[in-house]
């Protein structure tokens, strides 16, 4: 199998009047690790299935290199999938599961290739077990070996780590990345976990309601989000509504609730006067108002941009929550106009946790601010808090009571 780029051109999928995937165009360079990131229902799995051939696009083309595979059936494409529930054949042992694709293609040297694949995932010693006798993590690795052994042009992974516990998941993230670089295959990984995407991927595509919001490397997406959705979905953002007051060559000055703040012009994406100024919680410095505490912002008068100490400052905040998580302390600070900002103070071992109710001053480097168009909804991309996680019990009643779908409804 050759090494070819995967290209989606204007791919759209509609189920009746519901548009699951809306005009998606992207290129995944051969050999790279691409993550398709988004919440449940955003269309990422449907996109994946179209690349696999398990769904047919309503419009658009899918190409591998120069070959148009849009109409090809799954078994005619050099694309393999690692399914969310692994889909290991229960009636075949591990060896035969991994060998399945090889045998269908009439490959020779099945035994050697299967052994190699199992060694890659470190499961050579379990070749003769049945899937039911394996743990969840082991099953997942068998599913991976089963796909990798066929050296496809594109390897698709549909939230493969979702069923694993946290520690195992971290481990597998590193493993997957290692395997991908070692074998050199193109991986397309679908996930709703933004940390997972940022850890593993070379390029991330953030999806929202069937559309790609932003494509780029993790750092780029994190530090320079193009929309409130991306800003809120990747990590956490504090978004302040403001009005642009002045623009010089390098700098954009703006006003939030009467205070003057600035940011670098390069990072301001708003062309109009309306602005959503964003700053990440880990970039904000928090200090008790008027007191001295550990590392303070440089004292002294106004800096060159007219700001105290050259930094953006919001005085008169009040701590409403302080959670010590070991690595850091996460604060919620309420500002006079009612908005609560998140601040992550790294645990440097200096000073105590600032108590709830204390008055604090917040400050940060202007260069750490990013600007978004102010006409957006500042809460786009924030995970809905009224969605309770699915009850993890097996269904017990034979007849679901009609209309009883909403828990806590």
């Amino acid at each position, binding site marked *: 199998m050759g090494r070819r780029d995967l290209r989606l051109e204007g791919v759209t999928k509609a189920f009746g009047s519901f548009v699951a995937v809306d005009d998606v165009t992207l290129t995944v360079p051969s050999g790279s690790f691409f993550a398709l990131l988004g919440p449940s229902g955003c269309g990422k799995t449907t996109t994946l299935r179209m690349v*696999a*051939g*398990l769904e047919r696009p309503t419009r658009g083309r899918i190409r591998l290199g120069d070959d148009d595979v849009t109409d090809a*059936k*799954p*078994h005619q494409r050099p*694309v*393999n*999938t690692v*399914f*969310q*529930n692994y*889909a*290991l*054949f*229960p*009636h075949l042992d591990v060896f035969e599961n991994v060998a*399945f*694709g090889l045998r*269908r*293609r009439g490959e020779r040297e099945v035994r050697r290739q299967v052994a190699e694949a199992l060694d890659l995932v470190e499961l050579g010693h379990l070749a003769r077990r049945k899937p*039911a006798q394996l743990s969840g993590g082991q099953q997942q690795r068998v599913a991976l070996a*089963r796909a990798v052994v*066929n050296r496809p042009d594109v390897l698709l992974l549909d939230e493969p780590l979702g069923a694993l516990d946290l520690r195992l998941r971290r481990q597998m993230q590193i493993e997957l990345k290692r395997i991908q670089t070692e074998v050199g295959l193109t991986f397309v990984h679908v996930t709703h976990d933004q940390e997972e995407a940022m850890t593993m991927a070379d390029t991330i595509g953030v999806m929202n309601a069937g559309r790609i919001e932003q494509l780029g490397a993790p750092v780029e997406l994190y530090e320079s989000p193009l929309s409130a959705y991306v800003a809120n979905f990747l990590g956490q953002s504090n978004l302040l509504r403001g009005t642009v007051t002045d623009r010089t060559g390098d700098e954009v000055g703006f006003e939030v609730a009467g205070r003057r703040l600035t940011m670098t012009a390069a990072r301001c994406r708003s062309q109009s006067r309306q602005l959503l100024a964003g700053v990440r919680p880990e970039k904000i410095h928090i200090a008790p108002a008027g007191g001295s505490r550990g590392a303070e912002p440089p004292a002294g008068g106004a800096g060159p941009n007219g700001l105290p100490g050259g930094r953006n400052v919001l005085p008169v905040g009040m701590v409403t929550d302080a959670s010590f998580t070991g690595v850091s302390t996460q604060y919620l600070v309420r500002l006079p106009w009612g908005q609560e900002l998140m601040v992550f103070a790294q645990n440097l071992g200096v000073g105590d946790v600032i108590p709830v109710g204390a008055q604090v001053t917040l400050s940060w480097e202007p260069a750490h601010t990013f600007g978004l168009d102010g006409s957006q909804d500042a809460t786009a991309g924030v995970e809905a808090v009224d969605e309770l996680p699915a009850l993890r019990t097996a269904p017990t009643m034979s007849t679901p009571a009609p209309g009883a779908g909403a828990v806590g409804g």
Partner: protein
Amino acid sequence: MVPPVARRHRARPVRWLGEHAVLLYAVLAFGYLFVPIGYTVAFSFNDAGKSNLVWRGFTLDNWRNPCGAPEVCTALRTSLEVGLLATVAATALGTMVAFALARHRFRGRTVTNLLIFLPMATPEVVLGASLLTMFLNVRVNPGFWTIVLAHVMFCISFVVVTVKARIASLDPTLEQAAMDLYADEWQTFRRVTLPLVAPGILAAALLAFALSFDDFIITNFNSGNVTTFPKFVYVSATRGIPPQANVVGTAMFLVALTVVLLGQLASARRRR
């Protein structure tokens, strides 16, 4: 208001009885279930000649010579032949229908479902009587083949229901995975679908055989002069059933019990 903690001092045997009431009851119920079996087994050892109504003495002769009463063996053979033919036919036809229902879209689904459900809901008397009526109308004499035709008819529905349930419980991603791994539709069916549905087909076949072997009412209406085992027992009930029939009944019981227990062991081992 929170009810106060009940503090009742019951005598220990009474409390034991209360806690184990259900289990004790179950023991009694099982006893009740096995009464006729016990009787049948016991009287298969009766030294009774033709009329097995009164206990005369213990003997192994009936077991050593189960065809001592030749009518018993003839009837048994007929039942087995009918059962085999009906099972094969009903399982084949029913499995095909089950696949069509579970995996394909087509028009006339409601009619199909109705036609499958109705025989199961119709009293056997009506099924038997209607078939006989039709046979008489077309001047076919009831005999061996009419029995087979009738048995296949009422077995198909049960096969369809059993196999369909098994197909429905199949994880759809397994077939998608097979296609993803370069198996075309036929290969997917042969290598993934069929092996996984096979236990359901087997269960359906066993069910069909059991239904066919034990059927009396429909058979009685449509057998003419041919005698199956249940019909033989019925007819000889008044003058006395030869003990060899008890032997057959006991043997059937043991065979069926063994098959089911082996099946349980096999699936338990597979699960481990």
